[in-house]
């Protein structure tokens, strides 16, 4: 969301930017450059019927996987589909598709939550690796229970 650099400059004493050769030392001219690394979301609890939706795997593959969990040999009565951030849409899409295919047999129960995410700000220059910076931010998540109502 926000530009990582702006966050960095807020917490790190601003070094003189630019390459003004008139300055004496070389170190001071070095602009602080950081690479933003996103850590994996903290702890993914995973039962066999939990499915985490991502934006990398093919949509159809993820849909097929859910379908297989529900029928197939495993025959789970319910599965949990989790989506974070951008993947929320896809998670909803998959849940609705499953429900449509089941011709009304499946029900959905969606919950939402907030997930705290941690980014690492790594200095590009390895010599500067004194103080690793982290930034926490929040993202929304959805958890959709897809189940056969017991009746």
């Amino acid at each position: 969301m926000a530009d990582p650099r702006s966050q960095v400059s807020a917490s790190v004493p601003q070094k003189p930017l630019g390459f003004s050769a008139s300055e004496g030392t070389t170190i001071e001219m070095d602009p602080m450059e950081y690479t933003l690394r996103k850590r994996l979301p903290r702890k993914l609890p995973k039962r066999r019927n939990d499915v985490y939706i991502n934006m990398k795997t093919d949509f159809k593959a993820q849909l097929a996987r859910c379908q297989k969990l529900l029928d197939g040999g495993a025959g789970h009565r319910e599965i949990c589909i989790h989506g974070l951030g951008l993947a929320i849409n896809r998670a909803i899409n998959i849940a609705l598709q499953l429900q449509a295919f089941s011709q009304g047999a499946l029900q959905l129960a969606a919950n939402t939550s907030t997930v705290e995410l941690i980014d690492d700000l790594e200095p590009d220059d390895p010599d500067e690796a004194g103080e690793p910076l982290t930034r926490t931010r929040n993202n929304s998540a959805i958890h959709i229970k897809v189940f056969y109502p017991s009746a």
Partner: protein
Amino acid sequence: MDLRGEYLPLQGETTTADSISATLPSPSPGAKQGLATGFKKVLRTEEDSPSPFPGLLPGVLEMRVKEGSKIRNLMGFAMARMQSDPGDSGQAGLRQVVFTGSGRAVTKTITCAEIMKRKVGGLHQLTKLRYKGVQEVWESQEGGDAEMTIHRTVPSISILLSKDPLDPLEPGYQPPETQTALWEEREGADVPQPAAKRSFDQTVSEPQSKRFCPQDLQGFPGSSKRVAHKLLFCQIRLPCSVLR
């Protein structure tokens, strides 16, 4: 503006009823390419559908979240309505609010609801998902009055937040400030503090960053950054989860 309307190119995402009712010279197979090149979306209308929450009090506030809506505008308005006292010049504070959004606005819709839950507290939640029909009118960029109308279905979400209790047996119900059974058995002991305590706009916090010991990284000056980074992760993950 971004011409890739939501779900245009993503294969598989629009498998249901993604019909193109074209009033356009170009045949429908070429329509998708046409969209990517010389066309501009000029209009997007959501088809009306019945409320996902039958039997709500009349006059409930419905917040329609759009792709470009500013969260601070939405929240400024909604919070004022939910928090205003009966004594104020305006109306009494509302008991219920509904956030709805479809397509690319879904994430924002959830974010709004999450923010409100954190700020107001004690709200009962009911979440409903469904597909929504959307009509889009695309206009040719290359002059002429070529126009086409596209009908597609996009996922949509409706979140009801209520100060009054809701039926806990209704699918999609979430009690105030706790995570339901969906989550409990795994996170129960582990949830650090009620979400209400966290502020949404946390930025870099110095004390926190010191927790993740930097020394480990310096042990690998020769290795490529990527490797060093992986190692950093391995070493940090465990203590980090313990600390939290």
